[in-house]
């Protein structure tokens, strides 16, 4: 019995390690500079995007790319700075152009740009510039890393609400406003409110850096 238990424990440990290895963040190319006392990062996000990104972004549907950046000590998990950015991309099939809306702490209502060419769009998306990670003085003498999480097309809160309404009232065809006609659907919709759907998630981690390695303009 004991060897069997030991064997099972070893198997579970091996599975956990394998999972951890699979989920391990990929290296992130980044530069960090201090400007006006603020720590600004520029990230190369190109490895995060799938090969068929052009097909995805040109499908005429709303596509969302969510970027989370955390400044954490090299040997620790408690971030000292967090940054979030949501990029909405919509290809207008009539105008044949990409409309991009970027929302971040500096522009919570969104800043829109338009790209007629996919290459321009890809270049814009692949390089995340001027990511504000707070005061440069926070760095001190420690060694730090940037941990990045990129989600492609997560189900947004607004889309989740539309989906819940669609479940609660299938007859309304996904457009809100009509009262629910399904008791079971309404209850399922209510229970769905806390759903956290998986998305295509890519994790990256930069090379360690210290305050001395931060460039200044």
């Amino acid at each position: 019995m004991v060897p069997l238990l030991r064997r099972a424990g070893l198997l579970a440990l091996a599975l956990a390690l394998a999972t951890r290895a699979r989920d391990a963040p990929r290296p992130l190319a980044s530069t960090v500079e201090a400007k006006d006392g603020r720590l600004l990062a520029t990230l190369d996000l190109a490895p995060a995007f799938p090969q068929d990104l052009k097909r995805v972004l040109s499908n005429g549907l709303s596509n969302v790319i969510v970027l989370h950046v955390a400044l954490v000590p090299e040997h620790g998990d408690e971030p000292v700075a967090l940054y979030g950015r949501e990029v909405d991309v919509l290809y207008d099939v009539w105008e044949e152009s990409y409309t991009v809306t970027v929302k971040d702490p500096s522009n919570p209502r969104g800043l829109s740009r338009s790209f007629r060419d996919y290459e321009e769009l890809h270049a814009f998306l692949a390089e995340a510039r001027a990511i504000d990670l707070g005061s440069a003085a926070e760095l001190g003498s420690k060694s730090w890393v940037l941990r990045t999480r990129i989600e492609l097309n997560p189900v947004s809160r607004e889309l989740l609400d539309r989906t819940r309404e669609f479940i609660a009232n299938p007859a309304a065809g996904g457009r809100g406003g009509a009262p629910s006609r399904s008791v079971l659907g309404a209850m399922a919709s209510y229970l769905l409110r806390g759903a956290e759907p998986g998305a295509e998630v890519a994790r990256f981690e930069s090379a360690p850096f210290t305050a001395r390695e931060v460039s200044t303009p």
Partner: protein
Amino acid sequence: MTAPSDRAPEPPAAGPARRRRRPRLTPSRFELKIAGALVLAAVVPLAAALWLARTLTEENLAVALNPRVVARLEATPALYGDLFQARKQLYAEQARTLLGELPQNPARLKAFLAAAVERTPRLRRAALLDGGGAVLYEAEASGPNPDGEWRPATAGPVAVPDPARHGLPAGAALECTFAVEARFFADLSEARDLAEVYHSAEALRADIQRSYVRAFAVLLGAWALAAGLAGALLARRTTARLGDLLRAVRQLAKGNLSVQVEAGSARDEVAGLARAFNAMVREVRESRDRIVYLEKISGWQEVARRLAHEIKNPLTPIQLAFQQLEARYPSRPADPEFARLLADAGDIVREEIGTLKRLVEEFSSFAQLPEVRLEPAELNLFLEEFVRTSPQLGEEAELLLERGPDCPVALDRALMRRVLTNLIRNAIAASRPARARLHLSVARLEEHARFTVADEGPGVPAELRERIFDPYFTTRHEGTGLGLAIVKKIVLQHGGEIAVSARPGGGASFALELPLAAHEAPTAREE
């Protein structure tokens, strides 16, 4: 014993079984069993339904969120893109065609443009521009777009080759504005919304399925809970009534024959059981009362017999002795005063002996009541015969007979005549000094025949009605108190009942109930 089931139910007696129920917080075992059975009966099929719901949800989602459907939906905007591309190419081609047909005469350019707008489908405006974009000639559709709401799609400006040939300045170009149906854009927006929701639902498929199963489980749980509560409530109603019955049975076991339970208006088995219990207790009580009464009468009969014997024996010697005393005394007495005293004493002795003899006769009569010998009779006919053959009663009272439906009964004619005679004489005595006016009536109940003897006298006070049938109880100076006792005994021996009440309008009313012969073949009641 005949159950008095045709009577109105007696009001429930006060007692532990009749106490107001206090709501219990802790369920009884019976309630728990019923509630548990209902919950089990609800949950077992519901568990199967839950499994079915899970399967159905999975299959429905597999159908509704078929990857091919989602893929087709997601491809819809691209299809609109292709449509728009085709339209743009068409419009560009049409603009080039117009350009090739431009007239060389500048004076005809405006008319040409107007004709082009008129004949070219969806062309809303055509304009010739100079190199700086200023309009040289233009024509615009005046009427509404045949396809309804529209959005402009501009083709060009397309440079005019060899503009001088058409009298146009260098750099001139043709710009055409075509109409694109606005519904395309609305449909595109709708399709995009739907595709995005389907895409989201596809991403949330596992969560949606889980939500549906949980929602179904919540509904099923609520249903099972409701079933359990309903079962507990139903069980509580039943168990409370059974509890009342149990307490009443315990009271009965302790000898409380006045206990009754509330049967209520329900028609179920428990209510039937309560009614049967009440009827049984009533029968037991009446039977006990009858037995007790008959035993008591029997005892009094023995007393009456001994009294009659003890009183009767010395009466004759006393009478003879006094007669001898009177006979020895000379007819011409020496002492006239003694002679008068002797005569007065003789009168007193004879009167008192006469009274004692009547008393002895009544005691003997009471003590020697014969056994009841039942024979079939019709109550109305019996009463009519009694009135007809009792002229002496008719002389003393006015007898009013109210005939009722046929009531076949079994009775001892002689004893029942005695019953009627006693009741009527009692009424005549009660009505004195007025002449008695008596109402004799017959009524047929469900299982009994009732005849009533009512007078218009002073009536019987309510507090005396319980004792009026006791032997030797009388309110009259000259009465012996045996008449009504004899009546009751005879009635009980017939398997009947007698009760006294107030007559509406004044007087006393004695109601006798005898079992109908059709329902029971009565046998004489033994003392």
